[in-house]
């Protein structure tokens, strides 16, 4: 089952946790200076080890446009990976939480994505695969810089952490800007995740410092996320009286829109699902589960919606037909 269909820890505040590790094979130039034959050799050698350990290869030349973009929407790959001109491949494990992008910006980008907040499990799952590959390949490494990467921004541990946070109460209290300024001084970056809709109240927290050991990075990042979770919950507890009534009204109205709309744009979905999500955490809505909203967050994205439907690509579909399909899909999942 995909990561977004499973309930996660602290899911009232944290939507997902992703841990990504970049590694390169010392004998080959980085992907920017790599020829197609060497890229294929890397894919065959690393892919062989991954396949022997429960990973399945996705060949982008064999899947539809919608299916390829759907993999990006599910956060297994980055959208630029689809357009990569060099031979490249994705390896995904059976529970669909561990993936490896081969020959993107770096030779190997291992990642684990889990629902809710689970940085320890995500990092140790990735480190396990890393150890396996480390026993078979020579990773590019230097005593001064640490693990060598094509992008110097990831030198050192090569670790990228990103956590999706739902922070409606901190936003209402106008705490996002001071919080992001404070976080930037701790080597982290907090940004709105959906550029098209700040009303989603979903933010992405990433690390900007990589020249520290992985264990230290995970420890500090976890501590910071815990602090953010506590602040968000404390602010939610401040919602009382008339404000509570207004939020409860908005949440139930939003649930009504999601249940009965005939057309639903993705930005509308983000806006209304955010109100319902807050309503659930404040105990105003009891018949919708938070994990269902997380699943819909991914499943109602255009390519995933089209890929799960009749297979027609989002390019061939008018926006009104996609909105119609989204509305009926959301309705169906909420009544199921």
């Amino acid at each position, binding site marked *: 089952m995909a990561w977004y269909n499973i309930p996660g820890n602290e899911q009232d505040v944290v939507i997902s946790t992703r841990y990504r590790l970049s590694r390169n094979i010392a004998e080959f*130039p980085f992907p920017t200076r790599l020829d197609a034959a060497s890229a294929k050799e890397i894919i065959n050698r690393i892919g062989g080890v991954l396949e022997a350990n429960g990973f399945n290869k996705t060949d982008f030349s064999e899947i539809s446009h919608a299916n390829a973009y759907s993999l990006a929407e599910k956060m297994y790959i980055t959208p630029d990976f689809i357009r990569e001109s060099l031979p490249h491949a994705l390896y995904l494990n059976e529970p669909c939480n561990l993936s490896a992008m081969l020959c993107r910006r770096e030779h190997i980008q291992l990642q684990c994505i889990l629902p809710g907040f689970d940085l320890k499990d995500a990092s140790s799952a990735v480190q396990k695969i890393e150890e396996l590959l480390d026993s078979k390949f020579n990773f590019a490494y230097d*005593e001064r810089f640490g693990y060598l*990467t094509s992008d110097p921004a990831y030198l050192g541990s090569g670790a990228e952490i990103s956590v999706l946070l739902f922070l409606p109460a901190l936003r209402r209290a106008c705490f996002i800007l001071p919080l992001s300024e404070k976080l930037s001084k701790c080597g982290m970056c907090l940004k709105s995740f959906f550029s098209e809709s700040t009303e989603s109240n979903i933010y992405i927290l990433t690390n900007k410092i990589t020249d*520290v050991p992985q264990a230290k990075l995970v420890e500090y990042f976890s501590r910071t996320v815990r602090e953010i979770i506590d602040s968000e919950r404390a602010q939610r507890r401040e919602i009382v009286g008339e404000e509570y009534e207004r939020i409860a009204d908005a949440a139930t109205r939003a649930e009504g829109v999601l249940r009965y709309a005939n057309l639903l744009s993705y930005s509308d979905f983000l806006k209304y699902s955010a109100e319902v999500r807050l309503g659930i955490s404040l105990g105003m809505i009891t018949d919708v589960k938070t994990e269902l909203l997380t699943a819909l967050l991914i499943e109602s994205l255009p390519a995933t919606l089209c890929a799960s439907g009749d297979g027609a690509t989002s390019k061939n579909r008018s926006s009104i037909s996609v909105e119609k399909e989204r509305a009926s899909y959301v309705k169906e999942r909420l009544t199921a």
Partner: protein
Amino acid sequence: MLCEKCKKKKAVIYYTENLYGELRSFNLCTECADSMRMSGELEEFSAAISGLSSEVTEIPRALPSGLSSLSIPKYSPVRSDSGIKCPGCGIGLSEISESRLVGCVRCYGVFADELSAAVDIMNFSSLGAARKYSGDPPRSHRVKLEMLDKISKLRGELTEAVNSENYELCATLRDRIRDMEKAFAIK
């Protein structure tokens, strides 16, 4: 105190951060701080810089003793191409600066100073030439370190054998060292 970037003007901006438990500081003149921001050298860290204005403080009269001894090597921007190309992949500094991507492992040796300075800027560190990664190395590197350790011990034994004029042992030790160095291509 002089600015740690240009090493000419007086440093008036003292910027310090607590990053993952490590105190990292910069002492800069206003021109260098502005030019670093204007030229986008810190764009990777734009979020941190946006907070700079609120955090910059005038240098206190008495700096903590540890901070005044900070030494940052001369900052050489990656974008000034010296014409040197990496023998491993043929990439030059101008291309690295443009794409923000390094070509191969050897680039880190050829352009060590420039890349180290760029990493310092991105990570708000001031390690420069003293840079040393503190995390766990990969297996291949650990094996190499263990081997180097063994070779160094054998060299110690060789010196002792020479001193005690045990030439038979000297020959054995010399051959073992040579074989090990050959196996790991250590010069």
